[in-house]
């Protein structure tokens, strides 16, 4: 049941991400991207990471998509101009196939085993995902957390410096 559900969601995600780059109208691309983000959020839920799913929807599918649509409207691109050359298409396809083959070749010759962490489904069910994230964010990863505020501050200054009409 879960495998089937995963396959459906993953298929939609892949289809939508292909649409993102194939759509002629940038607004359609942006809408496909929102759908991709929703599918990713669903995958996070299946990985028992509901907090990440919520962030994905709030920040990406919500806020960042608003920005992307604003930028599309700011640039006022209707449909894509310029055509894709056959040459580039061939080169891209060849590179993609080569990388796919490379991945398959190395994967078939070696193992891919990750280290198992301390937190499993039982812990998430017992404590809660948001609490677990908070626990490591505010103890072990306290410094990275505080650096994030400096990062956001630098970004705020940057947005104002670059985009404000009158400085």
């Amino acid at each position, binding site marked *: 049941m879960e495998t089937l559900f995963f396959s459906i969601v993953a298929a939609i995600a892949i289809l939508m991400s292909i649409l993102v780059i194939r759509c002629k109208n940038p607004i359609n691309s942006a809408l496909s991207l929102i759908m991709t983000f929703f599918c990713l959020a669903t995958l996070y839920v299946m990985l028992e990471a509901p907090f990440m799913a919520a962030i994905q929807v709030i920040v990406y599918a919500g806020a960042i998509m608003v920005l992307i649509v604003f930028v599309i409207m700011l640039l006022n691109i209707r449909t894509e101009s310029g055509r894709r050359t056959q040459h580039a298409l061939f080169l891209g396809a060849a590179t993609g196939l080569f990388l796919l083959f490379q991945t398959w070749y190395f994967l078939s010759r070696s193992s891919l085993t990750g280290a198992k962490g301390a937190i499993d489904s039982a812990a998430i069910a017992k404590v809660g995902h948001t609490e677990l994230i908070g626990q490591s964010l505010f103890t072990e990863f306290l410094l990275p957390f505080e650096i994030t505020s400096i990062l956001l501050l630098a*970004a705020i200054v940057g947005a104002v410096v670059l985009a404000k009409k009158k400085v």
Partner: protein
Amino acid sequence: MLGAYLPIIVLLVVAACFGLGSVVVSSLVGQKKLSPVKLQPYECGCEPVGSAQERFSIKFYLIAMLFILFDIECVFLYPWAVLFKRLGVFGLIEMGVFVVILFVGYIYVWKKGALEWE
């Protein structure tokens, strides 16, 4: 585990059915008399002027950008809020530092006039 999310899936399905259904049903049941006036986009009785796809001002972009940055700040408040009591005074200081640093950014944005619609 995933059973807890069943209502959301049901809601999604119902929403999709409602959206699709109303389009399909109205196209099946509704009358079709097309005239030039009917095909025009409705604009409070006036003739439409120009295209709806106007160029946006960069002002929107700045506001959206600032919104995202403070939105991300809020995201960090959720895991803190659920642990507030267990973290105690230490947690208050941690989040205090975080918020104060961003508050500097807020004062900067405010005094700079970036929140005003110029």
